[in-house]
């Protein structure tokens, strides 16, 4: 009889899988209540490191062409597809759901990534505009990524929920620091392995595991975080985080209830993490004598 190689789940930060600088861990149990794994209890320092990594990742990701970003997000779907059986087993173990339900969740997560892969090069056309201003200027408005988004992943649907909150954020060209659902860090870090092999530049997605109530306040107050997604928080924590976010005028998305991730995703998550930039450029006024229309 051979002994299985037990897996150590770590963080996913800057494209690598570091342990916490604090050395802290917590025990994760499976659906039956038995020990499943030790997971990292991320610290404030880990959160700060993740923000530094995200800012770096934002640089290359936001400058990549939309076509390229779409290809990379599609590549995540490919990698998830190839590891579909592993995720099905993981969901059965961690959530105690039946095989059909687990398979349905993984398939839905793959479809979600494919959906967003097709958005990257259409955002500008759909949410931007050429504005007919009443003066000789060419004037256009185009969406741009907000920057670094801190995301608190939802507790239900550990894979589909995670993918549904990450995909729209990175589709718009943002980088993110995600706090995984406390009960399912193994699913989240395994998804980190998918990301790590998907040509996503290092730092674009960073996944912290641990206690949201402990980590999130630091991210909400962090001056280099531009936006918050409060999907995975309860009302009390959400309020505290919104208060903290005001210190740096962060953009905040908070769903109106428990999102139904099985439904079509809509565009509100995409739009919540985009800025609209308006550019004015003279078209000149050739008919004016002297032509002094700067």
């Amino acid at each position, binding site marked *: 009889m051979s002994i299985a190689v037990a897996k150590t789940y770590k963080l996913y930060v800057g494209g690598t899988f570091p342990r916490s600088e604090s050395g802290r861990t917590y025990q994760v149990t499976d659906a039956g209540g038995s020990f499943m794994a030790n997971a990292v209890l991320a610290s404030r320092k880990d959160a700060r490191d993740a923000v530094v990594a995200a800012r770096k990742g934002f640089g290359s990701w936001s400058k990549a062409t939309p076509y390229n970003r779409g290809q990379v997000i599609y590549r995540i779907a490919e990698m998830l597809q190839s590891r579909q059986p592993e995720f099905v087993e993981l969901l059965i173990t961690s959530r105690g759901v039946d095989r059909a339900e687990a398979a349905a969740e993984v398939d839905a997560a793959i479809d979600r990534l494919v959906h967003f892969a097709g958005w990257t090069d259409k955002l500008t056309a*759909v*949410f931007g*505009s050429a*504005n*007919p*201003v*009443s*003066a000789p*200027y060419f*004037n256009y*408005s185009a969406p741009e990524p*907000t920057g670094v988004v801190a995301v608190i992943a939802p507790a239900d649907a550990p894979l589909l929920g995670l993918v549904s909150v990450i995909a729209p954020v990175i589709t718009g060209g943002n980088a993110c620091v995600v706090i995984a659902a406390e009960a399912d860090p193994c699913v989240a870090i395994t998804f980190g392995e998918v990301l790590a092999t998907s040509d996503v530049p290092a730092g674009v997605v960073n996944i912290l595991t641990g206690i949201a109530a402990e980590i999130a306040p630091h991210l909400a107050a962090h*001056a280099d975080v*531009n936006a918050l997604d409060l999907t995975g928080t309860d*009302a009390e924590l*959400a*309020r*505290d985080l*919104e*208060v903290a*976010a*005001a*210190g*740096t*005028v962060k*953009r905040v998305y*908070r*769903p*109106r*209830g*428990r*999102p*139904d991730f099985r*439904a*079509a*995703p*809509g*565009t*509100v*998550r995409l*739009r919540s993490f985009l*800025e*609209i*930039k*308006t*550019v*004015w*450029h*003279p078209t000149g006024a050739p008919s004016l004598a002297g032509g*002094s229309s*700067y």
Partner: protein
Amino acid sequence: MSPSTESSSIDWEYAPAPESEAIGRVKDRYLPFIDGKFIEGGGDDLVTVNPGRDEPLSTVSTVDEADLDNAVRAARRAYDGPWSKLSGAERGKYLFRIARGVAERSRELAVLESLDNGKPIKETRDFDIPTVAQHFFYHAGWADKLGHLGFGPDPRPLGVAGQVIPWNFPLLMAAWKIAPALAAGNTVVIKPAETTPLSALVLAEIIADADLPPGVVNVVTGAGDIGAALVRHPGLDKVAFTGSTAVGKQIQRTLAGTGRRLTLELGGKGANIVFADAAIDQAVEGIVNGIFFNSGQVCCAGSRLLVQEPIAEELITRLIERTETLRVGDPLDKNTDVGAINSRDQWNKITELTDAGIDEGAQVWRSSCPLPDKGFFVSPTIFTGATQTMRIAREEIFGPVLSVITFRTPDEALAKANNTPYGLSAGVWTEKGSRAMAMAARLQAGVIWDNTWNKFDPAAPFGGYQESGFGREGGPAGLAGYLDTDDEAVIK
């Protein structure tokens, strides 16, 4: 510029050309507008000052919290009652009526605004008031086309919007807050600034004449405490604020956890970047417009001039020559380029920051244009030798004070321009189109002006990145702030 030496007998000065104050029809006393009626407010009267002369202009009755409650309740009744049952097309007709009403009374409004705010009549007459009318006209047309905005076929209004606006563009801000709110189907309680309440109350007359249902628009008056009471009022569904970043943060904190929608249009420290290949005369005009328009009391003012080193000396010389020709003085004089600062408080703040610039070692130049004996005036001021860490380069001065910094490469310009928590406006002067476009793409600001500055249009979204706020005003993106566009399904 030195005066002509050929003939000292010719006086080249412009004769005064003052607009008639009577056109403004300033009344002795103004009342807040609640539920379709002008009522005596329960608060203390406030005296609004003509900043061009430092003299009382008129008295305004202010509201107390009970009046505020009544205003919010009236707005709710109007929303539940006639307004939300009206078709978009009918709503639009009311907005068209307001647009026409503003246009008809534009000369009166221009004079009134100039008297109350201190800005030159040429600005109120040629920019503020025409743009006010245009905002109502533009948004009127959206009222029956909301399904075409791109946020789904049937976006819904939010309900009652509370709006707090500043003193630098009193009527323009009222228009660009009220017009989209009504077009989207909301009702409004709006509070103009304490120092500039008059034009919004004349707008209320125009709205009353347009026969809008009572309560659709309510104008409440008072100081910051009434503004604070309005934004925290539980009867609102939406808060829109334009003003300082400090107050904006406070409002965001106040609304935390309430689920109420918020848009913030806050401060800025706009970078105006001039490359060596720029058309220099046009650039000089743009720099002057960027910082001396409305005496620099503009959130998107081009208050930091970044000049490429090879042309720095020439540009600064020409800029100083041009600025020296600006006529500072009586806001009602049609020849005035730079009017009064809006209030003594603001005058003090500008003076404090200018003194800080001198103390920190920047070289100061001030226009020699004589200033009136009375009123709040500041000479156009240019600091050279400013560094990134000086207060004049970091803090929003909100006055006619420009800080000049030099750069060598485009990357250095970008790094310096983006080195601020603000992100409202930026500009680039270059004759090379690809450089202009590349800079526009990498500047962290909501509005980029290439080879121009301070251009606005209701069709063009305006608003900031980072600590300059969130949400846009104007265009489809602006209307989104007054509509429920959240299309994420939730588990019932």
